[in-house]
């Protein structure tokens, strides 16, 4: 079984400042890792995913994440945020064999302040 912990429920940050949203996972098997973003009254949109290979993964909207196996972490970063980045961000993990459901963290609410 897998589990995901998002360490911060809310992160306020000023516009054009850098941001890091933290995610740690637990699993007894190999996993794939994902970050999704949810804007108000919308579904989840995939930001990026880690499957294998390079531990630094680049996604849409200028976001990137780094997989750290020894620390079981997959933190999301952006060097300069915009007002439009205000949303809920979810880290998720799935097993790497077959179609498996996603296990989500509780989410981090990113609020960008002008």
């Amino acid at each position, binding site marked *: 079984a897998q589990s995901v912990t998002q360490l911060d429920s809310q992160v306020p940050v000023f516009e054009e400042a850098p941001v890091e949203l933290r995610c740690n996972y637990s699993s007894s098997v190999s996993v*794939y890792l*994902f970050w*999704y973003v949810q804007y108000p*009254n*919308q*579904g*989840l*949109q*995939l930001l990026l*995913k880690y*499957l294998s290979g390079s531990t630094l993964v680049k996604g849409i909207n200028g976001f990137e994440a780094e997989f750290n196996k020894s620390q079981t972490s997959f933190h999301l970063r952006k060097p300069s945020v915009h007002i439009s980045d205000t949303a809920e961000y*979810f880290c998720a993990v*799935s*097993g*790497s*064999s*077959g*179609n*498996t*459901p*996603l*296990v*989500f*963290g*509780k*989410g981090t609410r990113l609020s960008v302040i002008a």
Partner: protein
Amino acid sequence: GAGVSQSPSNKVTEKGKDVELRCDPISGHTALYWYRQSLGQGLEFLIYFQGNSAPDKSGLPSDRFSAERTGGSVSTLTIQRTQQEDSAVYLCASSPSGGGSLAQHFGDGTRLSIL
């Protein structure tokens, strides 16, 4: 359509009534998932379909919940004798066959409110 379509977008019903929620996945996607998003519990997996069969129903919270998928396409999630704790946003996702490396694409959800 281009994405996963869910209907209705909002549903308000009285406690004790039955409800049906519909999901129309991306054309050609063989895997389909239902999740529930609520304030207290976050995002929870409910059920997974591969084609028309459901190899994983482990997330269904009670026997009041059931789901089916016909023709390898549209899926319906049914909640019988609704309770107030069923109030949540129900999200559907689909992905192509081939393993967990293929990310799931989500619909905008159905917001269910039980009075």
